[in-house]
């Protein structure tokens, strides 16, 4: 196998191409001279297929994503995908991705489990309980007694067992969360309100209802599904940072569809990958095929500054240096007015501004200038 390696290593071909060539050579058992000729031909084809310098790659990407985009469902479309969780799809989702919304409308996580948890349903349940937010109403009946100014909590044995909680734990959690004394009598928990005020009673009741007894506040629901050999958790709601620290979770394979969260927790490169993944899967789900290269270019533009920027006037388009190009995009009057007030100059170096003033653009053949050599 090494005999093909030194032939291939002489050419700066992408590693995927090299792998493919090598596999094919080995299958056919080609000798070294032939191999060299084939690689040479391949390299010529590779060079011929590279993007020309001065080609407007961005416009091509924009059109290639834009045209299939017209065929996407425009209304907010949800579907019961894996595990009955509602996910925004179609055009609204694509817009969400490119706008880098800080709070996507349907945050969702895919949580894979650590080795010793993944195969066992009960252990998966255990992890799910640690993640899913549990409120008092999930595990008990709560009643207010106005006459005695107290709140009576009647725990539901079965629900407690399913959530793997004990009355004792619930009591402690409430005491800590509400900073009040909780009395236990005949299996019931009683919170006495010292002040004889109806308002205080209702406020305490509201606080109690919103108190997270176990799990992570943002995770509203967890569903366990078997994917091949192992159990996987799907959640409604997302909090990557906290979930990654939960015992039993495999942090390396835990994903969320909230791209901004990925950027904050895992950094710019992970965000770039997440943008590509999410955009491609959204398009694919709609049955549209867009070459990854276009999406990669968009993701590169969004992450070039080391900061996750949206495509739009608050991001990539808004940071164009030319006033005319910005004015041509959105908020024309504001942009022109601001530029006039500040006495800005436009150096007419980009495409849009040159089209506006009616000059040849610096693209393709317009990008080069010819100088005649006088003999």
């Amino acid at each position: 196998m090494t005999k093909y390696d030194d032939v291939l290593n002489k050419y700066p071909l992408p590693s995927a191409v090299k792998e493919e060539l090598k596999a094919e050579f080995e299958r056919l058992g080609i000798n070294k001279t032939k191999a060299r000729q084939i690689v040479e031909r391949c390299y010529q084809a590779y060079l011929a297929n590279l993007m020309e310098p001065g080609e407007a790659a961005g416009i091509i990407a924009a059109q290639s994503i834009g045209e299939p985009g017209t065929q996407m469902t425009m209304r907010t479309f949800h579907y019961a995908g894996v595990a009955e969780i509602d996910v925004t799809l179609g055009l609204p989702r694509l817009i969400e991705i490119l706008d880098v919304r800080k709070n996507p409308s349907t945050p969702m996580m895919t949580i894979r489990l650590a080795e010793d948890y993944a195969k066992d349903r009960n252990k998966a349940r255990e992890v799910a309980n640690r993640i899913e937010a549990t409120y008092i109403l999930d595990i008990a009946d709560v009643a207010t007694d106005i006459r005695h100014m107290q709140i009576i909590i009647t725990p539901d044995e079965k629900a407690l067992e399913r959530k793997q909680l004990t009355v004792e734990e619930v009591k402690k959690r409430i005491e800590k969360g509400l900073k009040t004394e909780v009395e236990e009598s005949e299996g019931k928990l009683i919170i006495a309100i010292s002040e004889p005020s109806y308002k205080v009673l209702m406020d305490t009741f509201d606080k109690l209802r919103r108190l997270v007894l176990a799990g992570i506040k943002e995770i509203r629901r967890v569903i366990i599904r078997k994917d091949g050999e192992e159990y996987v958790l799907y959640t409604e709601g997302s909090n990557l940072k906290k979930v990654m620290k939960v015992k039993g979770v495999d942090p390396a394979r835990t994903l969320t569809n909230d791209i901004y969260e990925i950027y904050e927790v895992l950094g710019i490169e992970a965000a770039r990958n997440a943008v590509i993944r999410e955009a491609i899967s959204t398009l694919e789900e709609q049955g549209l095929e867009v070459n990854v290269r276009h999406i990669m270019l968009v993701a590169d533009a969004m992450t070039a500054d080391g900061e996750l920027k949206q495509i739009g006037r608050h991001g990539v388009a808004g940071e164009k240096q030319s006033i005319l190009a910005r004015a041509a995009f959105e908020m024309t009057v504001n942009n022109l007015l601001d530029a006039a007030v500040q006495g800005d100059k436009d150096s007419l170096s980009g495409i849009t501004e040159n089209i506006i003033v009616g000059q040849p653009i610096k693209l393709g053949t317009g990008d080069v200038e010819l100088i005649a050599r006088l003999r």
Partner: protein
Amino acid sequence: MSKFRMQDHVLVPKHEVLSKEVAEELLKTLGISPEQLPKIRVDDPVAKEIGVKVGDIVRIIRESPTAGKSIAYRLVV
């Protein structure tokens, strides 16, 4: 349990800091100044993990669906 490294995550490609000599060599072959590279922030979680200072150049080895492996560089800002 040993502490989880961000670089072990499936979404995070391998990052490595370039030494001064390698960085200079790179800029020479590319024929660009460091500011022309894409940026990565010093407070980026992965950058913090590998320990970089402002002005360093980070090499990122990405798993690319088109090229197999692709190498990108970012300037730490």
